[in-house]
């Protein structure tokens, strides 16, 4: 075989797979989006939904799935309620236009939906934080899991400040937070800091004066807070109002700008890990996402917006990779083959066993000016 023939054969082999693959046809690809935009989780729920809405608009405009193919959201409200979420999922299943579903802030609700969608429709989780939620090939998660970062943050703060005693707050009615606290406590203990107390609160609690008094009564060097959003900001506000001057370590629930608007000054200097922030993430994709989000909603995105955004990009990417008319089964198989979310705002987002992973640790805190900055030990 002469040189030219070899070159032609190589070209033919390279081009052949592209030539035989038929892109998904033009038309609407509907994603059933189970939102918690009202109810107790509304602050986060609205951010997830807005991120997903922005992504679908961008995907459609760019022709990401295929020329003339639109990604469309069918949004149904669940208000953080498991029964309503299940009802919504049954409606998505019955609607043959819906090719995939996306849902859920609460891990127990995801677990209640897994048997509903198994074998029928792919589900991409955008917000629930418990590890182990994905179940291939039907359930995936684009949540940047906060647990490992909580542990690293707790250990970093403990190694830096060398506290003798640490008191912990934990959401007693949230298994994910209990696991996160237990892991953080173990990491802190490994640095030599003793546990002064573990104080339980409930997600529905609103008055934290007494728990704050209880924590201060243990006279800790550092207080670490592993609770859902409302209790976390309530605890920190109550601790500062009662005069606690020590270091408080929070979690990523403190990141949304709405939390700064709600509590303000007591959050200044409280370190917490962060997967995404418009003040910190500066990749071209992140900057474009922030600009588009601000233009559309007149407010900056937060980590929840980013997760809702990535859920839609993962679905679009899998649809784009498919050959011919997509089906729910075909999409599930295509999702299972994705090893990374190519269009992401984190500077890299791998998919491993159906779970998105964001590497690297950024510890930030709110500044007095209301921006997020890298944390520096006091």
């Amino acid at each position, binding site marked *: 075989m002469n040189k030219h023939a070899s070159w032609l054969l190589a070209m033919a082999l390279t081009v052949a797979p592209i030539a035989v693959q038929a892109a998904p046809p033009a038309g609407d690809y509907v994603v059933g989006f189970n939102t918690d*935009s*009202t*109810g*107790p989780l*509304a*602050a986060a*729920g*609205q951010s997830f939904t807005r991120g997903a809405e922005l992504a679908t608009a961008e995907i459609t405009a760019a022709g990401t799935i295929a020329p003339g193919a639109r990604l469309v959201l069918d949004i149904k409200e669940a208000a953080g309620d498991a029964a309503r979420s299940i009802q919504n999922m049954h409606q998505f299943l019955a609607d043959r236009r819906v090719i995939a579903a996306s849902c859920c802030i609460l891990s127990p609700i995801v677990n209640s939906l897994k048997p509903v969608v198994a074998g029928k429709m792919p589900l991409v989780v955008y917000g629930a934080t418990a590890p182990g939620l994905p179940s291939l090939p039907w359930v995936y998660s684009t949540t940047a899991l906060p647990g490992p970062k909580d542990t690293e943050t707790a250990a970093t703060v403990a190694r830096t400040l060398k506290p003798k005693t640490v008191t912990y707050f934990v959401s*007693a009615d949230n298994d994910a937070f209990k696991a996160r606290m237990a892991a953080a406590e173990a990491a802190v203990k490994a640095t030599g800091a003793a546990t002064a107390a573990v*104080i*339980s*609160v*409930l997600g*529905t609690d*609103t*008055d*934290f*004066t*007494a*728990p704050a*008094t*209880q924590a201060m*009564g243990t006279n800790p060097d550092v207080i670490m807070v592993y609770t859902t959003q*409302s209790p976390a*900001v*309530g605890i920190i*506000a109550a601790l500062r*109002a*009662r*005069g606690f001057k020590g270091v408080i370590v929070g979690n990523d629930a403190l990141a949304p700008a*709405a939390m700064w608007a*709600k*509590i*303000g*000054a007591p959050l200044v200097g409280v370190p917490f890990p962060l997967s995404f922030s418009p003040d910190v993430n500066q990749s071209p994709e992140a900057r474009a996402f922030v600009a588009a989000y601000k233009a559309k909603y007149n407010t900056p995105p937060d980590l929840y917006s980013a997760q809702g955004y990535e859920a839609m990009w993962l679905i679009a990417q899998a649809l784009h990779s498919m050959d011919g008319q997509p089906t729910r089964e075909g999409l599930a198989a295509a999702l299972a083959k994705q090893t990374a979310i190519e269009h992401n705002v984190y500077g890299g987002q791998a998919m491993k066993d159906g779970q998105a992973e964001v590497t690297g640790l950024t510890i930030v805190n709110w500044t007095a000016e209301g921006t997020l900055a890298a944390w520096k030990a006091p």
Partner: protein
Amino acid sequence: MQLLLEQMVNGCAIGALYGLFAIGFGLVFSTLGILNAAHGCYASFAAIAGYYAATSLRLPFAASLVAGVVTGAALAILVDQIAFQPLRRRGAGMLGALITSIAFWMILDSLAGLATDQQSLSFPAGTFPSAMPMLGTLPLPAMQMIAIGGLIVVTIAIHWLITHSRLGAAMRAVGWNETAAQLGGVNPRLVILATAGLAGATSGLAGVLAGISTNNVSFTLGEGMLLKGFAAVVVGGYEDVRGAAVAGIGLGVAEVLSAQYISTSMRDAITYALLLGFLVLRPRGLFGRASFLRA
């Protein structure tokens, strides 16, 4: 000892909010015969009104408090006239009123969610007293003292109103038998309006104070107070506001001390077990008479 005293103050302060809420809740039940599930919404809307008065209108603390109280009263009157007056006219029983109140609870909760854009808001620093004077080594946060003082003033005032004034006599008469009261020259419609307004106002006061103390101005505020307020009314006795006040304080102290010294995760279970035990011993409540059922 220091910790015990601090937690006692905390318990009294949170209990004062329960007590204030319970007074309004009890007034409606004892006078109007309505177990009003929408009562928590009056507290939520009052807190929302107080918040916007403080932030959008930049009114001082006292004026924001008044705005919340007036909103609570106005809403209670509005709901009574729209929801309960037609039922009264038709002679519907307590169950019909309860179901109607649940419907209004849902509607008002949704409206409160819209009013706050589904967010939990917080009174900004500087819009309420935040001083923390010390009594020896015991901190006495200003808002806690205002809540406790508010409960004392409201309890005394409403108790006096009910037991020593013509309006109070008319309220008791309507509560006992509306037809008989009318035959005696009482205008039941006016009494009902006054009672609903007074109940809404006290719940509104509880709502604004709770919204400030807990950094939570949202539709969930009233929901949280509803169960505790109901418990305080049951334990205190429906017919005497002093019972609701004392039971509210007791509930708050039990809640805080059980969390401090027994179990934080079992706090509510312990508190309600104590209440249940109390009711077994004294079913008519602290200040209730032998039978509190309306004739």
